[in-house]
Each structure stands twice: as C-alpha cells, then as structure tokens.
C-alpha cells in the first residue's frame, strides 16, 4: 500500500465515495480566473530561455496514429534525441510516446540516449476492453521495453460512481507495469466537471499513480490551464498529506511556446519548484516542440526564425 495514510478510505466502495465526495469543492469561475491570472505573467530574456529549454526537456514527443509506422517512430526518436540538428546544446525531450506495438522500435531507435520510451496502454484511448486485455496490453508494452505506461481510466465506471472499480483497475495496471512509471490519464474532457477532476486526481494518486495526466489528445477538450492548475493543486496537497510526490502531465492542445511557458508558471506558482523537472512534469505534445525550437533560435540569434529551419518529422 503506497499510501498508508489513506488505507481506510479505499477499504470499501462507500468509504472511497465518502472520501472523494468530501474533498473541497471547486468553484469553476475562481479556478479559471486564477489560471488566467497566472497566464498574464510576462516571462522574458533569461527566464524565457530557461523556460524554453525546460519545456523541451519535459516533452513526451508523441505519435498515436493508426498510420504510425516504424519509420515514423524512428524519425520521432531521432527528433527526440536531437530536437534541433543545428544546435547540439538543445536538450533532449523527456520521452517518446507511442502505441505498445511500436515500443520495441522506439526502444531500439533510442538506444544509448537519455530519452525514455512511454507507451499508452489499457485499450487507449477509450479504455473499453476487459481488464485482462488491458493488463495484457500493459505487460506487452513493458516487456517490449517501455519505461513508462500511460493508461486510461474507465471513465464509464468513474461517471457511474464505481470508484473502487476504477481504483482497483489502476492498482492492477500499476502492478502489471512493474518497474515502469505509471501515468494515469483521466480524460478530463469526459469527466466534465472540476469536482470530478479533483476526485479523479486523488483516486489516481491513492491507487499509486506516478503521474496524473489530463487527457488522451483524442477528445475535444484536452489540457487546459485550469484543469492542469487543479491537478497541480492535487499533487501539492497529496504530497503535503502523504509525503509522496506525484507528477503531472497535461496532454493535447498545447502547441505554442507561449502556452507551454504559461503551464510552467502554473507549476512554479502552484506545486512549486520541486516539480520543475521532467521527472515530475511532462507535456504530452508533438507540434509544440517545433515552436519551442523556433523561439529558442530567436533567443539565440535575435531574429525570428521560420518553419524551414526546424525539422518536419
């Protein structure tokens, strides 16, 4: 039990429900206003350079398409290792994130590099499959060398109030993940309310999530400043009460350096400096990287760059 402080709250479905429903409510307008207010921070010069490199290092460079091929994955891996071929001081991304059947290819392509391989699993993105299939999916990815597993929760079970079922599923996947770090995706756009996002965050952390992650990138609303702020509050409070630090990964919809920097401000001023590290914060993104690179080139040279000066992968 990773969270003995809360052992009793997961003892039964009703205890878990009481606990989750007893968490402080979230006022949507106030939460969004706070996120918007932090979004007005003006990050310039040295701070911007720091933030851009940090953001690059936090990217889970992702391809999750039905059309993915080994070639596509190898190109992505190369990009992760050398995001800007013209500037070898550019940090590597944190990981590449692929489907389980592409893990071996990615692992091979990243041999020797300090870039992790993350794999979505558990019948991503819908999560609509039997538990043993989800677990097999997970074990398959880990066996192929995945360092990290990005699972999706059963939103249907969550929304129908079967919290213990969701909890137990996460625990089972955690166990199946073995040494791999487990990111738990809530699909916040489907949970719909901020109260649900807070409850899901605690549920995930109680079940042993190493990361809590907003979304799959496959629905209309993915990461937003507000839902990420809310999850940052959750990991902050969870560490305060249990001593256990959990990471946060907003995914989907973050495309510009400006957006990424706003998220880093959220991290800095909500969870705090301890989370300003790719061990504790990630961006699930693909196109974001090129924009960060363009901004990085602009800072280095003083002139605006263009899309011809970053690689298209």
């Amino acid at each position, binding site marked *: 039990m990773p969270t003995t402080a809360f052992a009793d709250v997961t003892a039964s479905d009703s205890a878990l429900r009481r606990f989750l429903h007893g968490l402080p409510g979230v*006022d*949507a*307008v*106030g939460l*969004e206003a706070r996120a918007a207010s932090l979004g007005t921070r003006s990050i310039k010069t040295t701070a911007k350079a720091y933030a851009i490199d940090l953001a690059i290092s936090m990217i889970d460079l992702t391809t999750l398409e039905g059309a993915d091929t080994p070639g596509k994955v190898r190109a992505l891996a190369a990009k992760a290792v050398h995001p800007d071929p013209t500037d070898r001081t550019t940090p590597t991304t944190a990981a590449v994130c692929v489907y389980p059947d592409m893990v071996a290819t990615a692992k091979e392509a990243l041999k020797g590099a300090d870039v992790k391989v993350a794999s979505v699993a558990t019948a991503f993105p819908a999560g609509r499959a039997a538990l043993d299939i989800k677990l097999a999916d997970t074990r398959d990815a880990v066996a192929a060398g995945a360092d990290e597993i990005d699972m999706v929760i059963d939103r249907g079970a969550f929304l129908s109030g079967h919290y213990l079922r969701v909890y137990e599923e996460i625990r089972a996947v955690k166990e199946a993940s073995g040494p791999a770090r487990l990111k738990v995706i809530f699909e*916040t*756009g*489907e*949970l*719909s*309310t*901020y109260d*649900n*996002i807070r409850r899901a965050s605690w549920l995930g952390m109680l079940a042993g999530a190493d990361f809590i992650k907003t979304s799959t990138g496959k629905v*209309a*609303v993915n990461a*937003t*400043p*507000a*839902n990420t702020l809310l999850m940052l509050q959750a990991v902050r409070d969870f560490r305060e009460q249990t001593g256990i630090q959990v990471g946060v990964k907003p995914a989907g919809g973050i495309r510009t350096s400006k957006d990424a920097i706003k998220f880093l401000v959220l991290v800095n001023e909500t969870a705090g400096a301890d989370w300003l590290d790719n061990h504790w914060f990630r961006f699930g993104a693909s196109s974001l990287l090129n924009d960060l690179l363009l901004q990085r080139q602009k800072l280095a040279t003083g002139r605006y760059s263009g899309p011809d000066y970053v690689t298209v992968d």
Partner: protein
Amino acid sequence: MSDTPARLGVFKTYKLYVGGKFPRSESGRVYEVTDSKDKWLANAPLASRKDARDAVVAARKAFGGWSGATAYNRGQILYRIAEMLEGRRDQFVREVADAEGLSKSKAAAQVDAAVDRWVWYAGWTDKIGQIAGGANPVAGPFFNLSTPEPTGVVAVLAPRKSSFLGLVSVVAPVIATGNTAVVIASEESPLPALSLGEVLATSDLPGGVVNVLSGRTAEIAAPLAAHQDVNAIDLTGAADDEALAKELETAAADNLKRVLRPQAVDWNETPGTGRLTAFLETKTVWHPTGSLGASGSSY
C-alpha cells in the same frame, strides 16, 4: 321630569405607545393639548429623553423580526391597520376635527384618505423590491442581484399641521419596507397619533415596530438625531423650523444617518415611492455562474 343627570362622559388618558405597550412618560409629566380654539382636549404625555431611548431600544428589538417577515405578511398587517382604522373612523374624525379645527366632513375626508394611504402602502410591501431592485447584467460569469433592504430604526418627526393624514403618510412607508419607527407626534396635535397607537396595537403589528411619543419635538428629536443606534431620521416635522432642522441634521451626521430633509408636501396627493426608497439600502450580491462543466468553451 326626570332628575336623572346627563351621563358624564368617560375621558381617555392618552399614553405613549412604546414596545407594544402604553406607558405614561417616565418623566411623569404631561402637557395640555387644546383644540384650535384653545379649548382643553386632554393631557398628553410629555415624553422625555429617556422615553426616546426606550423607544429606540424597542424599535431595535423589533427590527429583526419585522424586517425578516415576508413582504406579504407585512402587507397583510398594513392592510389590517386600514381595517381597524375604518372601524374606528368616527373616533378619528372627531379627533382630527378637534386637532385641526376642521369641519366634520373635512376631517372625515382626512381620515378616509389616511385609511386609503395604509391600503396604498399595504400593496407596496411586496412590489417595491421589484421596482427598486433587479438583476444587473455584469460583464462576466456572475449572477448579480440588487435588492432593497430596510435601513433599520427610523426616527420620524411627524408633520406638525396634518396631525393624522400627514402622520400616516410618513409612518406607513417607513414600516412598509421593514424598518421600525420612533415617531414624534405633532407637538400641538398629538392626540390622533396617540390614538393610532391603539389601532396599531390591535392590528397584529408586532410591538416596537412603531413607537409613538408625544411632547416637545425639539426636546425629543435631539437625542434621537444624536442616537448612535438610530439609522435614519425623517425631519418632516421640522419643516417650519430651519434652525432645528439644521441642528438635527448636523447631529445626525455623527453616525451618518440617512436624513430625509423637510420639504413642502401636499398630503392629499398620491404619494410616489420617494418615502419608501428614502429608507432603503441597496444590497448587491454576486455569485459566480461559470459553465456547467470543465469542458466548456472558456479556452
């Protein structure tokens, strides 16, 4: 030839009306009230500063319940006052005729108008909130509503000349909205006001909502104007005395009482809402609305 003497009438001892009771002045003093031809009518209590203080205590005590009553309930009670008054019409016609030197028919017109005034204000209790308040369309995700609320304890200097219609015209709007009142009756003609207390006492009006004092206006008004637990003052009764009005308004500034300055009023005209709104505060409450879900279109 009967030697049975003519029946001797029974005089009424006029008393103050404070906290729903009919005390004599704590000073033990009275003053002579005469009609317009200087004929003695009665002895009226000469209220003291202490009577004024007691009246404020009673009015404050009554404020929570009265302001918290539903507007519908207040309307019913004000209407009940009109009913009770109608039943004692003859008494008030006589008292008003004596007080103001009016013919019986003119006095009757005054009393009828006073009854109708209670009815007018009875109907306002549950409408003024809609007239004076409302939703404000703020530029943001907030529900925003302004509501009028009673100011609190109001000291009322009833008009000197119009001893009954004028009196009713200044008292009814104060209590219609949920304020409580300490009323100083017309100094020269206090008897209709003191009799009104008897009507109020039998109209389901909670004790202390209206308190009626008689005596020297300047003497009673001064402590009321300076009283820190009085929220507002209606100076109508100081209309003929600029110096007094100024002195009272100056004293009222100490706790920033709302002051209704004396002005020329034709009591026979239909009143507007001015006397209702004079003793109302506007409270504005904000609450976030927000979207139904976190997946809303805020981004």
